[in-house]
């Protein structure tokens, strides 16, 4: 199984006529995702990469029965497009853009909720249910079907991390890029709940960083009696205090924002937490071994497969 999206999800691309929209529409289709059309107010009626282009979301949904959307528009008009999507009947909306004013992020999240929709973003590559559907622009070869639910605050770090997991034979149910901004469509806590409820997800991998409070929500989840095993990578040991590290939320203000405070909280809650991407695969293996000590031993995992650039796409979904 997977969460939020799968092979039945029917996608439109809002802003499909831009370079990024066009690239992503093609790329998502190549992955096997059901992309059923695009929306462009300025160029309705044309075809882009073989996709019909509709003037608005309502028209697109009426013609295609779309229920999911990825939105490639600048931050200046992002709120308007997200509101149009969720009021037009879209249930899963991905807004990857960054530089979004926080007020608009607040309104977006509220609009999604008010319409019973789920928003992923802003500031995310999107989400992927490997082998089923991809909503965003993460590099496809990094992912394989499997039993791990992955949550990440950072885009490229999630590619690196999933590439390593996949290379080590550790596939994923769904990888959710929750994004690096303080106000998120789906927060870490909510992503945890989604993956917790997914029967096929056997363990959860969380990719976090300094600043913000998401890591404490991970610790809270992991401390639950019914929690699934959790492994976590927290980056930013080398970051100085008081400087924003790219992400709006990646800033050490108080002690709770620091790497060491987060690592301690996670470890105390029973999370297999590591501070270096090189230690991620063993940590995940250890988390899985907690679950199934009889089937695997952490020593059998090699952290990186140097022999090939494209990782083995061998999943673990057969287990569940």
């Amino acid at each position, binding site marked *: 199984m997977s969460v939020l999206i799968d092979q039945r999800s029917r996608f439109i691309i809002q802003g499909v006529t831009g370079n*990024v929209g066009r*690239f*992503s529409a093609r790329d998502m289709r190549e992955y096997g995702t059901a992309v059923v059309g695009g929306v462009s107010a300025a160029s309705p009626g044309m075809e882009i990469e073989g996709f019909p282009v509709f003037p608005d979301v309502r028209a697109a949904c009426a013609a295609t029965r779309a229920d999911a959307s990825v939105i490639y528009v600048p*931050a*200046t008009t992002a709120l308007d497009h997200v509101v149009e999507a969720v009021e037009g009947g879209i249930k899963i909306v991905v807004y990857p853009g960054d*530089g*979004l*004013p*926080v*007020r608009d992020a*607040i*309104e977006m*999240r*509220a609009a999604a909720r008010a319409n019973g929709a789920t928003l992923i973003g802003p500031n995310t*590559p999107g989400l992927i249910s490997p082998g089923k559907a991809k909503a*965003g*622009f*993460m*590099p496809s070869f990094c992912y394989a079907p499997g039993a791990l639910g992955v949550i*990440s*605050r*950072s*885009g*490229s*770090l*999630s*590619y*690196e991390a999933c*590439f390593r997991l996949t290379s080590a034979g550790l596939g994923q149910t769904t990888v959710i890029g929750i994004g*690096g901004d*303080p*106000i998120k469509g789906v*927060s870490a806590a909510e992503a945890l709940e989604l993956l917790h409820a997914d029967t096929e997800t056997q363990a959860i991998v969380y*990719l976090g*960083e300094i600043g*913000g*409070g*998401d890591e404490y929500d991970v610790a809270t989840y992991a401390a639950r009696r019914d929690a699934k095993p959790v492994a976590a990578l927290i*980056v*930013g*040991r*080398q*970051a*100085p205090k*008081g*400087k*924003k*590290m*790219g*992400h*709006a939320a*990646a800033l050490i203000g108080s002690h709770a924002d620091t790497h060491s405070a987060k690592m301690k909280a996670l470890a105390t809650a029973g999370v297999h937490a590591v*501070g*270096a*991407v*090189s230690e991620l695969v063993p940590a995940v293996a250890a988390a899985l071994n907690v679950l199934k000590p009889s089937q695997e031993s952490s020593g059998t995992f090699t952290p*990186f497969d*140097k022999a090939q*650039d*494209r990782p083995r796409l061998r999943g673990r979904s057969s287990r569940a």
Partner: protein
Amino acid sequence: MLLTEHEGKRLLREAGIKVPPGTLVRSPAALARRKLACPVAVKAQVPSGGRGKAGGVVRAATAAAARRAARRILGMRFGGEKPSAVLVEPWLAIRREVYLSVTVDPAADGYVLLYSPHGGVDIEGGEPPLRYAIGPAHRFRSYRLREILATAERDAALREKVVALGRRLVELASSRDCVTVEINPLALLEDGSVVAADAKVVRDECAAFRAADIQAAVEATHRREPKPIARALAGDLMLVWLDGDVGLISGGAGMTMATMDLIGDAGGRPACFLDCSANPTPGGYRLAFDLLDHEPKVKVILVSIFGGLTQMDRVARVMKEIMQERKSRKPVVFRLNGTNARRVEEIFAGSGLHNHTALEDAVAEAAAIARKGARA
């Protein structure tokens, strides 16, 4: 972007919130030309917290004392920054100091209002403040705030003033794109009125497109940055200098931090956080190299990019071009992966450039080069 007290108070005043009448001066001489009703408070104007405890707020009983205080304060540093000016205000006859702020909080799905009946410099040490989770600004309800205040604030008249101010602060935060509006202390004066004795306002730089004053402030801040940082910002690169010698050109905040951490693990020290993901173009990468090539402390450059939207075959071609043009002899270590990464090897073929498959290997090589350079 944290504003100075004076800038923050201007926003409060514009929203109809009472602040003390103040005089902003950039030099003791300018202060000498003003008439002052002493005693006054002389306050360092610097976008940094903890100013009060660091001696940045001084009571002056005479005009001469005020000038001396201004001179001393203008020579100090607070959180590494020199004050741009001092704000001189009448010394207030304060009956009580309370704390009031509105800020963005993910746990509130939007704005949260915080209040403490005990304000002032020691706010962080005391009881946690009362908390009203508002969400989007239009969900503010004065009666909800009133209920919450009633649990800890006994002065009913003051509560009503705080309720009215609360709405004003939420509307200010939302309509003027403030991430935080903090009044600490909110001063209850002897005459029963309340006045914002201090102001800490953080504005949302992302909203510059719809707020000319944010745009102007961002530009002014960028101009005040050291030249390389200003150049990086102008080129849409995110640059933070660190203490080390391994220059890092990367993409994505998390990936950049992860690589920095690995550099440390390999015995190296990162020279910078340099995220090119907002401008992954030939111009952006050229600027990145130019910045690091001209920084003497950088001994080696590690390019660590894992591209999603950024197509690595294009990046590899750009890197090859830059390596051919560039005058600097600083060694460069590559680890490019991501979309179309399988073509990097053929693009680099024959150019003498090598792309590491594993990040750890690239980091180890860069750290080793830096160590060798340091020993040499």
